[in-house]
């Protein structure tokens, strides 16, 4: 299916465990983004990527790791999950043209217990 998909949609993990959230897009967009959204708040940028093998930090990168070995995939890893990382995570992509729109996935609701 064309578009941007995130997996899993829901995840419960324990404090201290490593967890990876997956993001896949079929448009060959050059830019991909990870955001987190906490209850009642807007989205905060965690990391973004301009192309394969090029990533950069956003507003709140601490505790997260990203990689982008292929253009279509942009996984987000929580190396040692903490309760403060309980949130809804959104992945997005865009074609990289300046001031173009971004397309968002459905989100992954992560709960750290």
């Amino acid at each position, binding site marked *: 299916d064309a578009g941007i998909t995130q997996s899993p949609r829901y995840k419960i993990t324990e404090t201290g465990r490593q967890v990876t959230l997956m993001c896949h897009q079929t448009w060959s967009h050059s830019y991909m983004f990870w*955001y987190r959204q906490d209850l009642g708040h807007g989205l905060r940028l965690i990391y973004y990527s301009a192309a394969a093998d090029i990533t950069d930090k956003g507003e709140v990168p601490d505790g997260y790791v990203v990689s982008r070995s292929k253009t279509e995939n942009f996984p987000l890893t929580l190396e040692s999950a903490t309760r403060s990382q309980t949130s809804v995570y959104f992945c997005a992509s865009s074609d990289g043209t300046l001031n173009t729109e971004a397309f968002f996935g459905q989100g992954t609701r992560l709960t750290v217990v």
Partner: protein
Amino acid sequence: LAKTTQPISMDSYEGQEVNITCSHNNIATNDYITWYQQFPSQGPRFIIQGYKTKVTNEVASLFIPADRKSSTLSLPRVSLSDTAVYYCLVDTGEAGGFKTIFGAGTRLFVKA
């Protein structure tokens, strides 16, 4: 980085026109203004984008004054399904890439 300020929430009734204003005093010359809509349990969705004056599409209009320090999203004849959070964004261009900075948004509640 240009920051945006919007009302936290707004109420309206079905059939009314809704105007949501956003201020962005530090907008840069090359920045565009973009609005997104977000329904509960979904990712944001692009509504409209503009640089100056007026832009209109099938769902909304965007009014931008000459100084570009604010913008107004206009939703004509809202329905219950327009209840959502609306985000005003100023895209920030940087060498080698760009970031999209989201604020807290405006929660619009449309009543019957």
